[in-house]
């Protein structure tokens, strides 16, 4: 299941997923201007040059928006569940899912602006997926 036979992800995201296997959330940081970006690009979109490299994110952020999904969308997800946009403290936003402190699905009790921290959703052979729980 690879585009070149060299692990999960594409040429630019492979390192992200390798870090995910170690339960590290990484984002790109520009060595020239300090801008953080995600998903990865081959250069910094802020200054258009600069060496971008992966750095560990703090793994914390705030809920920017959220929706409770009441529809069966994928076979492995039983509704209802909360899909959210989380703004990392470094700046980039991720689409993600929210879970309770113990990892069980959240259906309410969380609001825009709440602090959250990264957790990892096991996917068997595929690398774990970054999800977030109430901080």
């Amino acid at each position: 299941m690879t585009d070149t036979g060299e692990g999960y992800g594409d040429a630019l995201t492979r390192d992200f997923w390798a870090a995910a296997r170690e339960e590290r959330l990484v984002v790109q940081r520009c060595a020239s201007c300090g801008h953080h970006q995600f998903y990865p690009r081959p250069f910094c979109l802020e200054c258009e040059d600069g060496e971008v490299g992966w750095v560990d994110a703090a793994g914390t952020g705030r809920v920017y928006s959220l929706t409770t999904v009441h529809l069966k969308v994928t076979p492995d997800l039983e509704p209802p569940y909360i899909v959210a946009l989380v703004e990392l403290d470094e700046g980039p936003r991720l689409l993600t899912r929210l879970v309770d402190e113990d990892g069980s699905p959240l259906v309410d009790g969380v609001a825009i602006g709440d602090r959250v921290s990264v957790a990892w959703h096991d996917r068997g052979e595929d690398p774990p997926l970054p999800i977030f729980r109430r901080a």
Partner: protein
Amino acid sequence: MFGFVRIGRPATPRPRCALSIEFARPVYIAGVAETALGEVHDQTELSMVALAAREALREAGLRIRDVDGVFVNYMGEQGSVQVGEYLGLEPRYADSSDLGGAAFEAFVHHAMLAVAAGRCEVALIAYASRQRSKRARRVAASGSGTSVYGPDPFHLTEQFMSPYGAPSPIGAFALMAARHMHEYGTTREQLAEVAVAASHWAALNPKAWRQEPLTAEDVLGSRPISDPLHRHDCCLVTDGGGVVVVTHRDRARDARSTPIRVLGAGEGHSYWHVSEARDITRTAGYQAAADAFGMAGVTARDVDVLEPYDAFTINVIMHLEELGFCGPGEGGAFVEGGALRPGGALPSLTSGGGLSYCHPGALGVLLLIEAVRQLRGEAGPRQVPDARIAVAHGVGGISVRSTVVLGVD
């Protein structure tokens, strides 16, 4: 050759629009036609387009063989080529830009410039879908990782969006709605009023899918899909489509109905993945509207009829802000008291919209058709009195917006 005659409207401030069409000939929508609507079992998408094309061109006083520009979306790979062949055309100008449902207002923009510049004479904008009869509109995970080479498991969308189970496209609009409610205090009751207003218009339109008006309680009490959006905050799923003919005055001289002037148009888009929105409560609709109104030399205050793209109720609230009918965040308050309903301060969704009339996957072409009919005075029981200027405002995917300002000469 066509001379560069100055035919522009009276000089008015054009704050953001560097583009002037005063060098060129004025452009009109000279013919419109819906395809069969609702559930269509006895036609194909191509035959629906062909029948509507013949009808719209007859209305324009033209024939299919007069068409030299073809503008289509969602009609298959190289859609303009497929539709062109089906109609026996060899166009010299073509556009199959995939701007989602917003493609059709964008096509008016593109066709206007092409016709004005003399690159084509008679532009055909066409769309048909049988998504309802084909049951093709399954709930998809957000986005699409399908490329011309087939499904790509490592498309960015498949890596970073789909695994989270956001339904597409409603999940993204639900995220917009939730943030809009958080920032501006917009309420579910205000969202519901959009659906209620659309259903009141639909009750006046014999072609509308829903004939019984909805109440606020109906909308608020409908089952949740992707909170805060419930079933009646979402558009219908129907078959349908339509054709719009764009040409210049001379070619519209035999038109059987009043040609409607394209006063201005604009478009824009800002993201594919909802995570990449800088401000999820602001879209490229501000850009599209500024360009369209700037070119037309009018503002929201001059608009008599609005045809917003009501795939979801939140869209309309945000369109009112993008188009300048109210300030950012004020769309919810604007719709309170029935402003959009028949007899309201801003007649909108006058066909019944995607919420109650017809939503064949892409709504944009039907917004143009309804705007033209309102300006011609052909809208029967739902006619807005003395309509002189109408706006159609398209949505594509999540962030694509396109605006067309139409007027009676």
